[in-house]
């Protein structure tokens, strides 16, 4: 009988298990599919769907950036470059360059933790496709801006909505690459002071 068992038992087992497996797959014909038909058939843009802590493309709120370049120091792959030039006459320090190379950034979030005033933060943007790798370097400073004072506890300025700073910089995938315009210091006096760059380890 042993041989007969070895011959017939697999048949019985396979009939039962295949029957049950087919029942499971057949039951899925009556359930709703879970596909999100990105990018066109979704109720709201995906950036609004992402959770609050989601780490998207970095953006910098220059109103509260004190130019301390703590973020540039903690970044393990040095993809943040900051230049602060001081106006010789008025000793006012100006932010003349704040670039983040999103092509190298690995969205680890260490810079956001290191920033004392919370100027740099992760937006929920992720659609940063471009045809030119040079456009992946985001230049946040167009014209020299005076470096902000660290805000007092009470009255921080209202921070712009998440993603509003970086979305115009990203533009669309087919925008041509335009080299950033060199940023000059505002020149109350006649000649421009020699620039001494501090911070931003190259």
């Amino acid at each position, binding site marked *: 009988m042993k041989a007969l068992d070895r011959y017939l038992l697999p048949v019985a087992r396979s009939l039962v298990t295949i029957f049950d497996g087919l029942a499971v797959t057949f039951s899925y014909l009556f359930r709703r599919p879970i596909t999100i038909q990105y990018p066109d058939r979704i109720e709201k843009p995906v950036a609004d769907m992402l959770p609050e802590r989601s780490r998207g493309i970095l953006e910098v709120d220059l109103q509260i950036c004190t130019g301390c370049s703590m973020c*540039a120091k903690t970044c393990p792959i*040095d*993809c*943040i*470059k900051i230049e602060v030039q001081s106006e010789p006459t008025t000793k006012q320090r100006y932010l003349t360059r704040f*670039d983040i*190379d999103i*092509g*190298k950034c690995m969205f680890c979030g260490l810079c956001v933790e290191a920033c004392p005033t919370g100027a740099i933060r992760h937006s929920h943007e992720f659609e940063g496709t471009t045809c030119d*790798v*040079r456009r*992946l*370097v985001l*230049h946040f400073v167009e014209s020299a801006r005076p470096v902000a004072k660290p805000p007092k506890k009470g009255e921080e300025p209202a921070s712009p909505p998440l993603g509003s700073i970086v979305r115009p910089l990203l533009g669309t995938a087919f925008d041509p690459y335009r*080299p*950033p315009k060199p940023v000059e210091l505002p020149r109350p006096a006649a000649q421009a002071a020699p620039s001494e760059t501090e911070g*931003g380890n*190259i």
Partner: protein
Amino acid sequence: MEASEIKKRLEELLSSELVWKIGEKQTGDGWVEIPLEKWTEACRLARDDEKLLFEFLRALSGVDRPGENNIELVAHLFSYRHRHAVVLKTKVSRENPVAASVCSVWPAAEWYEREIFDLLGVNFREHPDLRRILLPEDWPGHPLRKDYQQPASYRGIPTSRPAPEGSAS
């Protein structure tokens, strides 16, 4: 068994004086220093002895110490039956790094030693199949050495991408 008892046991088996060391502030793991010529014998005893039974080679790693001009071979051992662990270390000179292979003791060591040969350049005697495991056969140099210079290109392929104009570094 505690680390010190294991060391004493090893000393009895090897019948030679061994040194037990630990980090600067007594934090981290301590290890037992084994002279290079007794390395295979110590490993075999550690595996076969009734009281030790280290049949599981957890990890075999190499640490390059150009300061003391040697390369350390670090073996983390563990015993499933006695549930205790030990760290054995030996030093290989940096000029002609040759060590005895422990493949005969643990088959797992075969690939670990091939990796140490590949990344640190330590040759192992009587290793069944010593050749590079991770890097291509004709890769110049051993990357994990402290004085390793990354070659500019390999067979005409540049090994680093120039940062796009305007990027940080």
